[in-house]
């Protein structure tokens, strides 16, 4: 078997393995055929493990043959020959994608195995692994994508699975509200990404990264776009990356994302998902290099987020939020490194950070218990040393900084007050206006209640009467 055929087979297997897991769990759930926990565990380990082995094999082949890049082509999903339109599905194995894919598969395998025992007999076991497999597919697609459309495909899968896993404990309102908030930020990021993808496809005539960034392998590619297009495309991609990686002004979602179960927090927001924005910037680094203002913007956003996250992490009162902001500090520094053009450093930083943070998040619940044991043994709190610079700042500044950090830089409040609430007020007013207009047309009184209001009132009345009846019964006044 020639090396090219072997590489193609291995590449195909790397991509298809997590997809198979998603299909098996998805179809079984849709058809209401409940797979046992053991079966799901076996499928998870088998498919992700196989994907990992094939990805490592490709790395070994590339190292042994001295190849810098291998492309595995799945052909066109859609072709319209008359107008030279095609939606190409192909995957690239290069110095950026292979480490990222291996990292994703290693962490998915580890966390998946951890999750099997962590969620044993949990009601949402199947649901967790459905979203988990969707996430694994998304990460592998995004890591290995050779076209910007394929990257978008993976990007969307990661976003959807993240939002649904944050709302994993869906019988409480808190996780659900946070899941919706994260989804909202992700949709903004997705919209920016889609616009950028179409713009780039339109400008270069195709979505292949190789064509967009000359034929040189990563990280030596050079963009052929003119600086104007590079600026707009770069700006849209930066918005997309900021949304996905929680950079300013979207940082508020990261601690909210910790509402999910520990395995998902570890793999999503500690290790992989949070780095996807930085990965995107690395993948399109030639476009960023092409536009100086975008480069400056990348550095500025990275630096400001790093400072913000470093302050905020120090005042968090729960371990997961604290780790979330610590994670954000490192991600922001990775973004700064990308802006400065240190791409290999950024890649190594990302891999190291992802592994460390996964370990920390998995260890967090037991660490708290260990701390408690230590404190009990010592008979008091463990000492916390204040930073040196704190002595040089006035108490007023300290208080203000503390307050700002506690309020997480007021970022959520700013977004709520400046965008969400005015939007809601405006369109609620339109909604009322429409209802009034319909009542005028129908010849009804404008102030009269709508169907739903009547229904709500009836149900409230019913509930109230039911409640009062229940009270009476419990008091024993009625038989």
């Amino acid at each position, binding site marked *: 078997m020639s090396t090219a055929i072997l590489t193609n087979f291995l590449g195909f297997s790397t991509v298809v393995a997590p997809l198979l897991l998603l299909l098996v769990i998805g179809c079984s759930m849709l058809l209401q055929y409940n797979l046992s926990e053991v079966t799901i565990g076996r499928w998870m380990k088998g498919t992700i493990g196989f994907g990992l082995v094939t990805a490592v094999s490709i790395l070994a082949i590339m190292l042994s043959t001295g190849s810098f890049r291998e492309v595995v082509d799945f052909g066109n999903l859609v072709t319209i020959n008359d107008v030279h339109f095609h939606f190409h599905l192909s995957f690239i194995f290069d110095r950026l994608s292979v480490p990222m894919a291996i990292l994703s598969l290693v962490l998915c395998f580890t966390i998946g195995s951890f999750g099997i025992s962590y969620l044993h007999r949990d009601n949402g076991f199947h649901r967790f692994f459905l979203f988990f497999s969707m996430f694994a597919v998304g990460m592998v697609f995004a890591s290995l994508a050779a076209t910007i459309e394929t990257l978008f495909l993976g990007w969307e899968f990661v976003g959807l699975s993240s939002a649904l896993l944050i709302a994993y404990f869906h019988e409480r309102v808190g996780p659900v509200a946070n899941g919706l908030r994260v989804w909202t930020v992700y949709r903004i990021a997705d919209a920016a990404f889609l616009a950028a993808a179409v713009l780039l496809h339109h400008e270069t005539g195709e979505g292949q990264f190789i064509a967009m960034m000359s034929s040189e392998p990563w990280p030596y590619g050079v963009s052929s776009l003119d600086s104007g297009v590079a600026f707009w495309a770069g700006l849209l991609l930066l918005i997309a990356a900021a949304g996905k990686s929680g950079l300013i002004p979207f940082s508020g979602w990261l601690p909210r994302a910790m509402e999910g179960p520990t395995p998902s927090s570890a793999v999503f927001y500690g290790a992989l998902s949070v780095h996807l924005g930085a990965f995107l910037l690395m993948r399109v680094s030639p476009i960023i290099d092409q536009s100086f203002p975008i480069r400056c913007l990348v550095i500025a956003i990275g630096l400001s987020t790093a400072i913000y996250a470093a302050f905020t992490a120090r005042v968090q009162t729960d371990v997961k939020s604290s780790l979330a902001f610590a994670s954000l500090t490192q991600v922001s520094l990775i973004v700064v490194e990308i802006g400065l053009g240190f791409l290999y450093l950024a890649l190594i930083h990302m891999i190291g950070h992802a592994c460390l943070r996964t370990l920390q998040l998995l260890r967090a619940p037991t660490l708290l218990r260990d701390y408690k044991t230590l404190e009990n043994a010592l008979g008091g709190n463990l000492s916390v040393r204040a930073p040196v610079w704190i002595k040089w700042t006035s108490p007023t500044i300290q208080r203000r900084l503390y307050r700002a950090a506690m309020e997480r830089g007021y970022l959520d409040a700013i977004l709520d007050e400046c965008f969400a609430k005015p939007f809601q007020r405006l369109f609620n007013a339109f909604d009322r206006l429409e209802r009034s207009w319909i009542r005028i047309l129908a010849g009804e009184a404008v102030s009269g209640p709508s169907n739903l209001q009547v*229904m709500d009132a009836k149900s409230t009345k019913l509930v109230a009467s039911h409640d009062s009846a229940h009270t009476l019964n419990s008091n024993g006044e009625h038989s």
Partner: protein
Amino acid sequence: MNELHLPWLEFAILIPLVAAAYVWKIKSAEEKRFVSIVASGVTLAVTLSAWIDFESLITYEARDHWDAIKAIFGREEFMIDQLNAPLLPLTSLLFLMTFLATPRVKYGVYSFTDSLILLSITLAIFSTKDQWLLIGLLIAQTLPLSWEIHNRSRSTRVYWIHMFLFISTLIAGGWIYQATTSAWWHGVAIIMWMIAVFIRGGCFPVHCWITDLFEKTTFGVSILFITPMIGAYAAMRLIVPVAPDWAMQSIAFISLATALYASCMTIVQKDARRFFCFLFLSQSSLVFVGLETASSIGLAGALCVWISVSLALTGLGLTLRCIESRTGEISLTKYYGLYSAMPNFAGFFLLTGLSCVGFPCTLGFIGSELLVDSAIEFSPLVGFVVVASTALNGIGIMRAYFRIFTGRKYESSIPIASMRSERIAILAITVILVGGGLLPQLIVNSRYKAAVEILQHRTK
């Protein structure tokens, strides 16, 4: 004109009509449903045969074999071409699935007779491009809904105010267009038709009748009245072949405004039916946006979106209807927590909802991609509005999902899980949506050919 091997189109129109007459006489609700399912199933098979027969002829358009209409009236009224070939089985499928997913509790309320008449008229509309016959059928299609509202003892005023305007502008446009050859008067006729299409399609600001309709009729009939997108078809047949560029741009501008406005409204809705209406208005408006781009890719994308939105929103609507039949009208101001009681519906809701906003690996994805691609080529602003409206709709769908299926644990003393017939109906739609998303080439080819032919006729 080429001929099909059998009179498929006339069969497809007649079968539901005959079934409607039979169903009207039957007393048993169970039997009514059964006959409706069989009739719409046979109609689906006939329309599919018509499509296959037409594709085998390799021609632009074809008419029925042994054309009875021609024998009686001396004119070929019904024909099949690239535009309507997939729309005929699509319409039959939507009706079949709605009949199949009708829960037992709705048998007494839901009018199978009206629905079968509606199916027959809708298929007749999709089978003709003759100006006056089309206008006549479009007018006739407004009647079953009026009976439906009237039978439920609700006010038909809002509906008829809009439909009166729709009918009068439709007729006035047709009359002016035929009466004169002056370009100025033709412009007036086109404006009349544009107003008619805006009303029927529910474009901003004449969309309020649709939300009113959903409040006053059964969910099933309302879904079937709007999801085949008759307004878009009327635009393709009446306006697109003769309209000057300014008319096309005006349609697209109004549609863009509708798409954006409706997507914003989707997020703040407090009622599931109104949420569904605005989602439909927003996504269906994108079909008109493809017209503005005046490119084959843009139009092909719009036609793909037409099919995906019709299917996805029917699936979503049926899911909501099934839930409503168990819980009563759904308010989006509170959490229902229905996931544990009906996990299937939760999955269907997400899949159909995300498909209609073009989520990857669903049928809507490639249509949106084509549409956005040509929209950005035409104008970056248009592209941005399309992307923004789909993003907002995505938020609206997830918000509705969370409100209906999560937030608390639903306590019920009776089992409320999905029934087999409901599961089959929604699963079939889901399979088509996902299957079409994984293998979209067939549908894209068909829609691209239709787009090219529409543009060629327009150029002529």
